[in-house]
């Protein structure tokens, strides 16, 4: 069941009409049942896996809390981690590693026949596994008390708005909301409806309209382009993935608000970032924060000198890339962003030390402001293009089987640096939809407080978004990109 399907709208209508009639405990029971129905709609066989992961981590956390001996606590944590990583590793990475191992053996003249299994990837496994893992780690660290009622924990893990594509909400944020009664106020409901509309707009108008162009650009026999189309396809993918994923997150947050829940922000203004650090503070924030808190900082963070910081950044980003999928392209994407972060950190520290030593002559105030704006804009544009090159690596990872990922990347890189002699007919729509995406990022804070807008602005925005969805949207039931992760 995807958010942009008719069956989901019917499902939602039923859930909401029941929800507003029930009391707190009954609400939770109904939401858990609804969430399992929602998940089982794809493939009922994976409902068992979701239930197993949930109950296993619930049990581990209870034991962790009950144990007073640190060694045994550690053992339970390791047990929980190992089980979660085994589940995700088996479903997501087995075939990739088996294939890579065979290739490696063949390259040194040895033959290894590992069975390649036809493993179906359970939708959203990376999201709910990380969600569940964060809970046990927090209980181990003593940041959180283990949940007594399994129903609350089941709701925390399986709550359908975030179940299949996030945001990855920390237990400390969501569990209290599951435990305590929720009464959504009028502003919350109004904001929730608006966020849902905005999310649908981003998905069906921005993402799904650009999707055929991206598919075409990454299908065989098209690249290399010599008329600027290479950049247009990369811009299109940048806006497609933004529209798709941030649209999903908006719908998820909107749905949660309709039921009185509050989810964390997952996107702010990623394409208005000036550097990779800022980008990761604005893009898929819940994953960035998860990786920072449960990987980067435990690895040592920036506490043990420059080289160690660089290593930690690289490891974090490579694993972050692999979280998206088993493939060399995702690994390369993670590596790319790791290098960007390392270079940025090195550059920043160098700049800081130079800035402390030298005193530059300061220009007059007005020109200084103008220069600063100009510099800001140029840096944003430059970094957006660097991000697009990263997206090239990422998109190559989802090319159909049989495509040479390296070939596609090479053919794009060949033309990206060439000055185009003409522009293709795709320029106008990509710029139009891209500008919409940029506008929504620029105004992301305002988008979150719709109920505080003036009435005529609300009216115009709602009418425009509804008209945009109905007249420019694509309704052929396309799925969300991040479901595959």
């Amino acid at each position, binding site marked *: 069941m995807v958010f942009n399907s*008719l069956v989901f709208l019917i499902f939602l209508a039923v859930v909401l009409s029941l929800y507003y009639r029930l009391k707190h405990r009954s609400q939770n029971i109904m939401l858990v049942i609804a969430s399992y129905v929602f998940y089982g709609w794809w493939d009922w066989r994976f409902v068992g896996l979701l239930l197993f992961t949930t109950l296993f981590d619930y049990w581990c956390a209870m034991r962790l809390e009950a144990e007073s001996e640190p060694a045994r606590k550690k053992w339970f944590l390791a047990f929980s981690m190992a089980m979660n990583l085994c589940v995700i590793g088996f479903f997501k990475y087995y075939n990739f590693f088996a294939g890579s191992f065979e290739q490696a053996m063949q390259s040194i003249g040895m033959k290894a026949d590992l069975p390649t299994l036809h493993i179906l990837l359970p939708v959203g496994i990376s999201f709910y596994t990380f969600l569940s893992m964060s809970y046990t780690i927090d209980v181990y660290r003593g940041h959180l008390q283990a949940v007594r009622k399994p129903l609350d924990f089941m709701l925390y893990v399986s709550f359908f708005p975030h179940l299949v594509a996030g945001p990855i909400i920390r237990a400390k944020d969501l569990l209290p909301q599951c435990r305590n009664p929720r009464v959504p106020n*009028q*502003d919350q409901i*109004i904001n929730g*409806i*608006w966020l849902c509309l905005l999310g649908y707009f981003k998905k069906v108008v921005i993402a799904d*309209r*650009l999707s*055929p*162009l991206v*598919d*075409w650009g990454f*299908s065989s026999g098209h690249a290399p382009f010599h008329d600027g189309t290479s950049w247009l396809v990369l811009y299109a993918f940048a806006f497609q993935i933004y529209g798709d994923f941030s649209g999903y997150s908006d719908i998820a947050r909107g749905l949660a608000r309709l039921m009185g829940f509050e989810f964390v922000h997952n996107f702010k203004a990623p394409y208005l970032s000036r550097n990779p650090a800022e980008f990761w503070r604005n893009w898929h924030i819940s994953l960035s924060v998860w990786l920072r808190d449960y990987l980067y900082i435990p690895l040592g963070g920036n506490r043990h000198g420059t080289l160690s910081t660089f290593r930690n950044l690289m490891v974090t980003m490579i694993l972050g890339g692999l979280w998206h999928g088993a493939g060399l392209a995702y690994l390369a994407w993670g590596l790319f962003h790791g290098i960007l972060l390392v270079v940025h950190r090195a550059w920043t520290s160098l700049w800081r030390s130079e800035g402390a030593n030298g005193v530059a002559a300061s220009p007059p105030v007005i020109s200084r402001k103008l220069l600063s704006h100009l510099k800001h804009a140029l840096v944003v544009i430059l970094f957006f293009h660097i991000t697009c090159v990263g997206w090239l690596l990422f998109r190559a990872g989802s090319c159909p089987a049989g495509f040479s990922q390296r070939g596609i990347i090479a053919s794009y890189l060949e033309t990206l640096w060439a000055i185009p002699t003409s522009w*293709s*007919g*795709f320029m*106008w*729509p*990509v710029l*139009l*939809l891209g500008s919409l995406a940029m506008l929504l990022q620029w105004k992301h804070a305002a988008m979150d407080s719709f*109920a505080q*807008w*003036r*009435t*005529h*602005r*609300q*009216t*115009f*925005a*709602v*009418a425009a978004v*509804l*008209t945009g969805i*109905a*007249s*420019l*949207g694509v*309704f*052929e*039931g396309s799925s969300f990109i991040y479901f595959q992760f």
Partner: protein
Amino acid sequence: MRFFPKRLEVAAIVLVAVSWVSVAVADSVISRMVALRFHGFLARASGGKIEDSVRFIQGRLRELLILMTVALALWMVGTRIDRMLRRRDGWQRARGLVMGLVVFILFNVFIAFSGTTVLFWSAFFNKAQVDNFAQYQIKRVLLTEVGAPRRAILIGNSQTNRSINEVLMNERIGKRLWTTELTQPGAHSFDLLTLARDMPLAKGDIVICYLSEVFFFGSGRGGVASDFFGLREIPDLVQLGGWDWYAPASLRSGLIGQVLPVYHYRNSISQKALGWQLVNVGQARFDASLEQDLESQAERRAPELKAGKNYEFEKAAFTRLVRELTARGCVTVLIAGHMHPAMQRRMDPGLRKSMRGFLDHLQASGGGSVTIVDGARFFEPAAGDFMDLVHFNDDSQRRFTCKLVDFLLSSRLASSASSPEDLNRHQIPNAP
């Protein structure tokens, strides 16, 4: 702040009233003046598809007035709803959201009215990159303004469109018989039934359809239904046994389109706003994926033409179409056409026999209002006459059209005095 200031409302009412009075008094004078000024432009823009420019301008003036009146009426409705919401305390926080929804609904009502006008669809007209839906809507409205003694309407799928050139027909016999092409690519029998019900047909109209095996035995239904399928078609679809042959998504899309005109016209709006290239990139990709070699393409596609249960549905729907056309006093000319010889060779020969048998049966039971014309007797097509497996190229389209014109002239169907029976009494000319 008020959405709709009172003074503006009064000014709009005065403007609309004055416009109505002006047009009532000097309708023909204004139209003639405008037509005189823009005659050349209209002829160029329409490519010879506008019969009478004065009548055309008159029609547009009337449309403009109707749209202005509707817009004003909707504006006033919006104002009243806004005032009503202001008075209700409980609705204050949600007023913007509710008014947004109201504006969206009112806008849809306005678009529903606009969709019946040439003025609206002209905004989507693009000669270089044809928007079939917009063209169809424009021609459908203009059909009511034809001044020639008789009208011929071309219906069918893209084969009819590629076989008969309406402009050439009108150049040759437009004074006596004005031809309007209202085809839809990918249309099958049930689609034509849906479309024909929507066409402003009159007694004595000649409905011409080019048919080949791909029409009756081909697959790929749904494209037309997603634009035209409506509530009134549901009983027919059930009764004719066609429910299984349409994807639910396309039927659903058609039904939603009936209540949300903005959604109904989404392809035209998207093409206009985002450009033809982006909206059609998927289709272009599919076209590019087809084999260039027609022989191998035919080898793959010919076995797909089968006379299964879908053929029964096609026959039933087509029979009902012809019956409805006859009931409306129309003459139906069905041209049993051909496909590329490579396709024809590889196809099950029984299909042609079956199709001809069905068409002959239609003629026999049509009470003189149905005529079957064997396309091969006009024109025996060779491989070089086709641009792909099913469509004529420009030259063969011209030749085929000339033959059809000769046929219509010699059958006296192109004259207003002729009756449906004249057509059947006529000897079909042999191909050169």
